[in-house]
């Protein structure tokens, strides 16, 4: 049985039991992270750091809420842009997830870019 990698100190959740499970390795926003077999992606994210995503509406970071697939507050992405609901997704070896949307999915169109530069059309 492989020993799990030392847990970085920056996590939010705290493991209380069941720590003798095989380690898994994944990438979170490009950085290597570890989890234990049977962890949900949400738990892996909150062992690695203190947030799952950021609110689209400016009120800050989010770290899940209901853990039962009802609040829809824990959706993240894999590197191809595929959506993953962290609380109901099992960690698999080698998965690569992003907590911000991959930029290439919806390239900013010139009209929006112009508006953001302050060129408001009538």
């Amino acid at each position, binding site marked *: 049985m492989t020993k799990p990698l030392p847990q970085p100190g920056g996590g939010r959740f705290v493991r209380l039991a069941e720590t003798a499970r095989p380690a898994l390795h994944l990438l979170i926003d490009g950085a290597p992270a570890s989890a234990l077999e049977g962890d949900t992606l949400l738990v892996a994210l909150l062992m690695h750091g203190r947030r799952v995503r950021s609110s689209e*509406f400016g009120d800050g970071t989010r770290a899940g809420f209901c853990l039962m697939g009802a609040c829809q507050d824990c*959706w993240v992405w894999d590197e191809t842009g595929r959506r993953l609901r962290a609380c109901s997704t099992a960690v698999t070896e080698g998965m690569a997830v992003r907590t911000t949307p991959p930029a290439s*999915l*919806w390239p900013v*169109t010139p009209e*929006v870019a112009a508006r953001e530069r302050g060129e408001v*059309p009538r």
Partner: protein
Amino acid sequence: MTDATQQRSDVLIIGGGLMGTTTALFLRRHHGLSVTLLERELIGRQASGTNFGNVRRQGRDLSQIPLANRARAVWGRVNELLGEDLEFAPLGHLRVCYTEAQAARLEQHVRDVQPLGLDLQMFSADALRKRWGIFSDTVVAGSLSPVDGHANPRLAGPAFGRAAQRAGAHIHEHSEVAHIERVGADFVAHTVDGRQYRAGQLLVTTGAWSARFAQAFGEAVPLEARGPQMGVTEPLAYAIGPSIGVSTPIEEEGLYFRQITRGNIVFGGGLKGPAFADAIRAYVKPDNTLRQLRELRRFVPAFANVQLIRVWSGIEGYTADWAPVMGPSARVPGLHYAFGFNGEGFAISPGVGEVMAELIATGSTSTPIDAFAIGRFATAVQDQPITT
């Protein structure tokens, strides 16, 4: 607060959607006539509030372009006009297509509308993808109207209603009209709960429910209720400015979408769903939704990674010849109509309001609307006499 005695206005409007509320506003602002508007439930709640929100001129029948131009001028100053933000985003309206035959039709349309004051730009497949990198290889061409766009239909009707009210119009919600009678030269509307409203002129803007009122005045109109199939996604990073749609003769392919600044993408199009005007219910069919998702992915593959969070329908009135009913009655002086906009009334509604106000107040309008006259449906068989 109304009481049992009759109230008399210059103009009585029945139907509190965008056609009714815009007319009420302009009757007050431009012509100073007194106006009462009766809405069965809540202002702007039916087709006016459930439609896609396109503010577009290209793709319309040429007979509607002058009206659409007039409406576009109002949209350009609508926030100041109403003192509220209707989220009008004039960031373009883009139509794309899948076949060279359709591209040729788009090009013909560019030529057709140019003399009518609408300047469109054609894009080849390469140019499309260079400028808007979201399209799949299936898209072969596109046509852009650079200063058209979209606005928020949930907010528009109520905002026009409030503005009309501030301008002195009497707006009554929860006021279902049971019947309308002529008393001398006046019209008297009776609500189901016994109130009466009297006016010298009457405008019927009751959308999909208008045939009953027209019929009562001896003017039958073939009008059918259909349900738009609408959906909205989760919020995404704000990236897409124009309202975008597929131009195609195949109904189920005709999807369109627009992104709002909060990031959600609203979409609609394809086959219509069942709408029951009498029951005031309309439904989204699950197979329509799934087909829409397929057709959206077809021209914008990135939709595969987006979540749909809500669908809705509404009740729109469709005429047999795809042209609206707009203008004076062919039989009754002082009676006017504006309904049956075939699911594309939102964009032209401020123009309809200006035109109907002008017509009612002065007897004529500078914008050509003869093609929309209700008289075109009159048949040799006499309709029922005007009810008393």
